[in-house]
């Protein structure tokens, strides 16, 4: 079918290219700093868990993970909650300015975060949300809400209109139809959209770092600051990096068939 000569070799080489740098990070996270600096070893000769232990016992480290998870979860909930009705509206109805609105949403998904860093800093300082998870969660809505709308719109369009009409004929009110019938029907779509909101909020650093200073500092900022201040503790940095990869690696299995769709804003 759709294959080319030597495909196993190409695929194998490409996967090795993808995995090698990750392996190196994992490898380093289990080495002592002495081993990292003194010798070049392909696997840890004196495996140690000291870096992981340090992260899980030092509050300045593990609170970074908690802070990150906090704003990521808030953001995902807000994004999905506001995007669901909008996705339905875009999928089923034509209304004044719908196309312009859709484009405006897309343009926000594409806006460079660097442009918004400074105004966000001012805005959230002014309303007293600076250095709280809410500031980052709301700031991340700028790209996650459009993303969720676009993905969910694709899934809602996959539900036949007849289902809506039958439900209304059966006397369902709109909110009841929405929660009892539509939401269960597009449950997988909601899962995919939530996954992508979670992911994009989790991987973003610039806004998260700009909008926090001490209390709500995300793990990515902890990584950049602590490490450079205390000299280069490579093993610790590697262990922290490995821990940030784990959430994505775990849930990726559930959305493997929808990955392309999510990254393409539901347009595949």
């Amino acid at each position, binding site marked *: 079918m759709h294959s080319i000569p030597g495909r196993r070799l190409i695929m194998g080489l490409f996967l090795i290219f993808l995995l090698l740098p*990750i392996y190196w990070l994992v490898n*380093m996270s289990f080495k002592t700093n002495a081993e990292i600096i003194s010798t070049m070893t392909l696997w840890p000769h004196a495996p140690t868990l000291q870096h992981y232990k340090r992260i899980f016992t030092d509050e300045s480290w593990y609170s970074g993970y908690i802070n990150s998870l906090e704003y990521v979860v808030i953001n995902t909930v807000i994004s999905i909650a506001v*995007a669901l009705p909008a996705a339905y509206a875009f999928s089923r*109805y034509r209304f004044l300015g719908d196309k312009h609105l859709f484009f405006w*949403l897309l343009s926000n998904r594409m806006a460079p*975060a660097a442009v918004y860093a400074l105004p966000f800093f001012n805005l959230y300082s002014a309303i007293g949300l600076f250095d709280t998870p809410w500031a980052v969660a709301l700031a991340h809505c700028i790209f996650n809400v459009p993303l969720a709308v676009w993905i969910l719109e694709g899934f809602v369009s996959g539900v036949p209109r007849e289902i809506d009409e039958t439900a209304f004929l059966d006397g369902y009110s709109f909110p009841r139809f929405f929660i009892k019938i539509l939401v269960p029907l597009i449950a997988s779509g909601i899962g995919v959209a939530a996954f992508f909101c979670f992911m994009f909020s989790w991987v973003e650093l610039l806004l998260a770092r700009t909008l926090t200073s001490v209390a709500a500092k995300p793990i990515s900022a902890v990584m950049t600051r602590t490490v450079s201040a205390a000299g280069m503790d490579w093993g610790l940095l590697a262990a922290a990096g490995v821990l940030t990869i784990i959430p994505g690696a775990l849930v990726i299995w559930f959305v493997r068939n929808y990955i*392309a769709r999510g990254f393409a804003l539901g347009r595949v």
Partner: protein
Amino acid sequence: MDKTINQKAWFLVLPVFLVVAFSAVLPLMTVVNYSMQDTFGNNQFFWNGVGWFKELLDPSTDLGGRFLASLGRNLFFSAVILAIEVPLGIVVALSMPREGWSVAACLVILALPLLIPWNVVGTIWQIFGRPDIGLLGYVLNHLGFNYNYVANDVDAWVTVIVMDVWHWTSLVALLCYAGLKSIPDAYYQAAQIDGASRWAVFKAIQLPKMNRVLLIAVLLRFMDSFMIYTEPFVVTGGGPGNSTTFVSIELVKIALGQFDLGKAAALSLAYNLIILIVCWVFYTVMTNAGSERPVKEGAA
């Protein structure tokens, strides 16, 4: 599917509108406001009209020089990574296994780099490329290349480009794979009966069918590479010198480093305008192509 006209749908869209307006329109207004003013600190602002914009487009000034230089670097960067990632992504998509557990395994491994926090991507390559402790740097130096991304411009560029290829080629590959999957078997059978060569099948069947996803991939990759900040910032910090300082890095330096609000705002608007134009192309392409898209659940 024909849609009914219903203005009440606005109520359903209202929450989205409010949330996004709060985080997009308000900040953008401050940017416009700043871009017309100059500040000497102490919250004192002076009207500067279009002064910053004039400076921005004049390469002989400091601001204009930095903007145009970083813009040039950024466009060059985008061009290079598109030239590598798009063909490579197609080849990888064509190399996907046909069925069985290996399909799922490949999909998961391919997606892995896409889900790593961007600063960790930077960290991974920062470590991987170091001549003393990184596998790549170590091997290259022992093979006789004098590779050092901290000191050498070319090495820094190569590192940033390889890093981006590592990070994002999977996206192109996954999109192309989704496109390839939607080709019915009958097409291939017909090609076989005609005795079409492998290349002919690619040119006549697969490439046209991948048209749309490729377009999405190219535009997404262009826009995201044009906004790249975190990864090169972590690896090279924009250096050595200014050689890997892209527009976003320059902008953050001016805005949050020097607190030069007027200049940063003017730069932001010019930057945003470029993105907006590309975005419009993207939107037009997607919505036009979308009308002929077959609605197929779970195909991607």
